[in-house]
């Protein structure tokens, strides 16, 4: 003897939804479904009654006996503009009463209506599967706070702060990546060279000064003096150059990071004019 509940399923859809019956049978193969489209209009006036359950009790019981089912499941689907409304009613054929009603009101969710139908039927059978929930989640638009991206402007900025041009490369902007990396590398190299020349001039100046004080030879004194004066001038020039280059390198480094953030990876869609000619010619 079959202990599983049996159902008479009445689908009232304002638009044809192919596969609905097939999917119900596939998903609930341990339950017995009877589908009947000839009974379409029996419950169309349901909401006009003060008590729809009692007003149809006799009919429900009669259908229960006729189709030998425990329950009658009425699924009404309406489409109002971009809204999808599923009104599910579950009647017990033994009492004739309406035992459960579920309304689902969704916007722009037309791809998900079959899944919702299955979830509603599953609900009446006390069955919920993760797959249905996952299907629902994949169709629904995401909560803006829950959206995560693989690449972000902040990720680009941090990378560029570590190595100039890296953030731009991460954002697939190869030209600006090369330019920033080249400029920063050149500035850094110039800074290092300026510092080395400054250091060399300073040391040379100290050395020439020392030599200048330790000799009495007029020729050598003159030579050390002119060398020390040149080293002094060079050390000032390289010192100023190093400071200027350090400022330029630092400013460029930060600018490169800001640039990586401003032009960092953000979602976008390019849309192009669809009408290629004038509206008159398009309409024919």
């Amino acid at each position, binding site marked *: 003897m079959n202990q599983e509940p049996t159902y008479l399923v009445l689908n009232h859809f304002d638009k044809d939804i192919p596969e609905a019956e097939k999917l119900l049978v596939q998903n609930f193969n341990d339950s017995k479904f009877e589908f009947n489209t000839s009974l379409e209009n029996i419950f169309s006036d349901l909401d006009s009654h003060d008590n729809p359950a009692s007003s149809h009790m006799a009919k429900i019981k009669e259908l229960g006996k006729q189709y030998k089912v425990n329950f009658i499941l009425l699924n009404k689907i309406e489409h109002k503009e971009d809204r999808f409304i599923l009104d599910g009613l579950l009647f017990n054929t033994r009492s004739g009463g309406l035992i459960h009603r579920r*309304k689902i009101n969704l916007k722009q969710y037309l791809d998900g209506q079959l899944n919702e139908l299955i979830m509603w039927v599953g609900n009446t059978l006390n069955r919920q599967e993760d797959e249905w929930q996952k299907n629902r989640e994949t169709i629904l638009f995401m909560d*803006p706070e829950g959206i995560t991206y693989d690449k972000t402007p902040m990720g680009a900025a941090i990378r560029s702060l570590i190595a100039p041009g890296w953030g731009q490369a991460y954002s697939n902007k190869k030209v600006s990546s090369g330019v920033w990396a080249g400029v920063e590398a050149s500035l850094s190299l110039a800074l290092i060279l300026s510092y080395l020349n400054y250091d060399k001039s300073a040391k040379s100046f100290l050395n020439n000064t020392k030599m200048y004080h330790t000799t009495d030879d007029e020729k050598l004194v003159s030579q050390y003096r002119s060398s020390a004066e040149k080293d002094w001038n060079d050390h000032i020039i390289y010192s100023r150059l190093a400071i200027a280059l350090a400022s330029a390198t630092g400013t460029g480094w930060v600018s490169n990071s800001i640039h990586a953030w401003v032009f960092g990876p953000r979602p976008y869609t390019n849309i192009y004019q669809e009408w290629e000619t004038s509206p008159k010619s398009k309409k024919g």
Partner: protein
Amino acid sequence: MSDFYKFLSLILFGITIVFSQVKLDVSTIPKRVDIYLDGVNLGRSPISNERIKPGLHKFEIKKKGFAPLTYDLLVNPAQAIKLDFFLNPIYKIKFKTEEKGLVFELNGEHRWDVSFIRLDLEAGDHFLRVFKIGEIIDEQTIRVDEPKRFNYYLKKPLTSR
């Protein structure tokens, strides 16, 4: 003895009131959404085992960052009614064009003629109409499925053809 009958009547009346009400469960996606029933805040979703009288009721569902939903429902006597509401998120959208002299219209409501605009749009499909010198030059549906920027061009670049 008459007190007993009064008490019994009251009990029966109470039972009638309680049992004539319909058990109400409200689930929403996302969760923790404020649910208002006929202007009264029922609390945050999910709501279960709430009681509701049969008749016409107005539900209002509100959450910051999502489009509010108002729903009129005629509740008929039943053992239970379960309502599922899915709120549609609102995304921050930027719309940019480098084309000159265009006027854009979205969903037949919002118009702009500037090259860059920020919009808060409900997720889903939106109808875009483009005008140039007073004539419609383009109509298309754009899908808003995440916060993003739309760049509008009159012509596709040759490389992408």
